[in-house]
């Protein structure tokens, strides 16, 4: 009964997905000995260098790394009580909710003061990356057209030639992807142009995706020409696709997502989880970051620029969009905007 409301929320939100589904799993380190079980939304390959460097310093320690969507992460921990030591997630709102609702434990060490105040919530949620929500366009489709620099310019381009772009635009399915929902709600909070853009995308029969990776692939493969709210870090990481895609960070504002780590209250290896958290913190917040740090932007530089980059703030404000009524209302409005048949 304790998490009845939460369950309801998750059931509605996971849309027909009712069991904890994983996307990948890998075990690092020796087969026996202490095991740190990490549940993450981050692809294995991206964090592999950091995991390797962590294990090199700790012989006899293994990491059981499971990848799932952010919604699945939430469901696994909050609803199904799966036994993990820590979660790494790009869905900041869900991580904050885990901490707020008492599923996490506090962590303080010699490394935690390195994290700026805005990247640490209550010593429970620690950010270890800052990544932009970008627009990815096909280099081929935009030959001869000036690439849009703002959302308004994107709207203008799409409106000018609807036949060219019909069925060739994509964005997150916010009902499925936690990160997509986070980006969309932050957009809706920031600018009215978001809803206009959604209506334009809807009129072009927008394709919906679960993940940034798929959207980048789709643009690169020529299935679509424009993908909105794609993780800039993932797009830039695909150097092999650099000649086919263009990554645009909108100039009026660009949302910045923070990838965060929390240590779970029921962890059986809290010490190891703390050490891995410290490892991530040290890699991210050292100046310069560790050589094996996989994310592009040194996080600290973002605020110093005083730019149009808008870091999403950790804190109870994020809980608002997880409110059942709020979420239902948002999904309904979003659905109305993007599905206009």
């Amino acid at each position, binding site marked *: *009964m*304790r998490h*009845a*409301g939460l369950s309801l929320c998750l059931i509605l939100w996971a849309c027909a997905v009712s069991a904890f589904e994983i996307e990948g799993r890998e075990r690092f380190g020796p087969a026996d000995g202490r095991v740190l079980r990490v549940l993450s939304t981050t692809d294995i390959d991206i964090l592999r260098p950091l995991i390797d460097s962590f294990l090199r310093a700790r012989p006899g320690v293994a990491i059981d790394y499971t990848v799932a969507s952010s919604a699945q992460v939430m469901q696994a921990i909050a609803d199904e009580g799966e036994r993990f030591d820590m979660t790494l997630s790009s869905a900041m709102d869900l991580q904050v909710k885990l*901490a*707020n*609702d*008492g599923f996490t434990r506090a962590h303080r060490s010699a490394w935690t003061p390195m994290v700026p105040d805005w990247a640490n*919530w*209550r010593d429970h949620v620690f950010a270890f990356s800052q990544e932009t929500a970008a627009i990815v366009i096909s280099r081929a489709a935009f030959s001869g057209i000036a690439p849009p620099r703002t959302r308004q310019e994107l709207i203008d381009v799409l409106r000018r030639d609807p036949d060219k772009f019909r069925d060739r635009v994509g964005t997150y399915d916010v009902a499925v992807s936690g990160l997509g929902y986070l980006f969309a709600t932050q957009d809706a*909070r920031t600018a009215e142009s978001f809803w206009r853009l959604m209506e334009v995308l809807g009129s072009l029969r927008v394709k919906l995706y679960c993940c940034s990776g798929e959207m980048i692939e789709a643009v690169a493969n020529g299935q679509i020409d424009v993908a909105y709210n794609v993780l800039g870090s993932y797009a830039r990481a695909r150097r092999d696709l650099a000649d086919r895609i263009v990554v645009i960070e909108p100039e009026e504002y660009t949302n910045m997502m923070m990838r965060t780590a929390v240590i779970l209250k029921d962890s059986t290896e809290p010490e190891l989880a703390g050490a891995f958290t410290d490892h991530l913190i040290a890699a991210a917040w050292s100046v310069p970051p560790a050589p094996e740090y996989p994310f592009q932007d040194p996080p600290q530089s973002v605020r110093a620029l005083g730019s149009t980059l808008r870091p999403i*703030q950790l*804190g*109870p*404000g994020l*809980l*608002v*969009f997880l*409110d*059942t*009524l*709020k979420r239902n*209302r948002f999904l309904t409005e979003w659905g109305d905007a993007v599905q206009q048949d």
Partner: protein
Amino acid sequence: MSGVRLSGSIRRRLTLQLVGSAAVLAALLFVIVQTFTRDLAEETHDRILLASATSIMDAVSVRSGEVTVDLPYAALSMLSNVSDDRVFYRVVLGRDTLTGYPDLPMPDPQPGDDEPLFQTLDYKGESVRMATAVRRLSLNGVPTHLAISVAQTRTGQVERLDALSRTALMLGAGFFAVAVLLAVWAAQSSIRPLRDLAGMVARRGPKDLRPVARPVPAEMAPLVSSLNSFIDRLRLSLSRSEDFIAEAAHRVRTPLATVRTQAENTLHRIERPENRAALREMIRAIDESSRAAGQLLDHAMVSFRVDSLERSPVDLTELMHELVDRLRPVADLKDITLVLEATAPHPILGDPILVQNAGRNLLDNAIKYAPDESLVRVALNTEGGMQTVAICDQAGGFPTDQLDQLTERFVRGRNAEGTVGSGLGLTIAREVAEAHGGRLEIRNTQDGAGACVTLVFPSA
């Protein structure tokens, strides 16, 4: 302090009382500041919680009989301005939870009670502060109520209160430290007039019986006035007794002289040896009485002149020369050789009559106690800014255990029995020396044959 019974110290009592009241005030200050900040912090927290609940209430709308809430972003984000604390909320319509944390305990709104409610309770294992706003509404003609609760854990508030408590504690301690310093200073300065008076009285010479004239604080006026009247009575009583003694001595001396003359005349006229011996004994007794009366008069005179000492240049050499010349006939009677050793003038500032009186008494004593055919030596010297007149005899010296008491009135050396004397000579000499800022030194000679009595005066 010897012989004075003590009942504590005014300064210590005053200091303790002031420090004690400072401690009470500091503790009171600490409690008041702490209570005030606690109330203020709680009130601030309550207001923000209520503002949050109210902003949610404003976002409630009724559409076709359906109540819905569009939670404003600011409703929860405003709470993060207070602290990084956990936030919970619940929206209840009638008995149904519309949204939020369904297990958050909420108060049952009383009918007619539209005031916001504030509670401190435990939720999810932590103490939370909760504000509840209630609105009455009618849904499809059925009256019901909508209650919105917003709760926040109090970790940040407790931390802030601890910090404020520490500040309040430091404030109290600082206040106390300053108050202690002030208390010590106040106690010191309030007893200073008393200490000054005591010092002034203690520094007075034994003959100084003037009233206290310097201004004193009002509280000490009764004490000083009593002291002055006591001094006055003492002086009056002293001068009366001195007058009485002088008067008595004077009245006794003149008839005694007549009696002595008659006795001597009679002595020439009687033949019988036993009568002559009796008469001689009588003359000796008359001499003794007359001499005592003389010394009492001298002493009274000395006491009087010392009270208002007049200083003029006096040459000790000249003065002692004259004195030796005058007493030489008396010395010759016992075949005593008087020697004056003085080569240069020895000037002092003083009352010549008093100095002469002192010298005469000492020389008189020496001649009186010295055996026949002995030597009495008067030596004048200058020693480190002091002029000394030493009168040395060969009379066998004083008993060493008695040296200190010899200058008391009417105290005589044990070996002086059988000689005419009153015991006032040394007292007079000492009082004169001390009145001039000098002293009297009594010492037996090294060979034990006699004693030296030395008058010491500051040089002019």
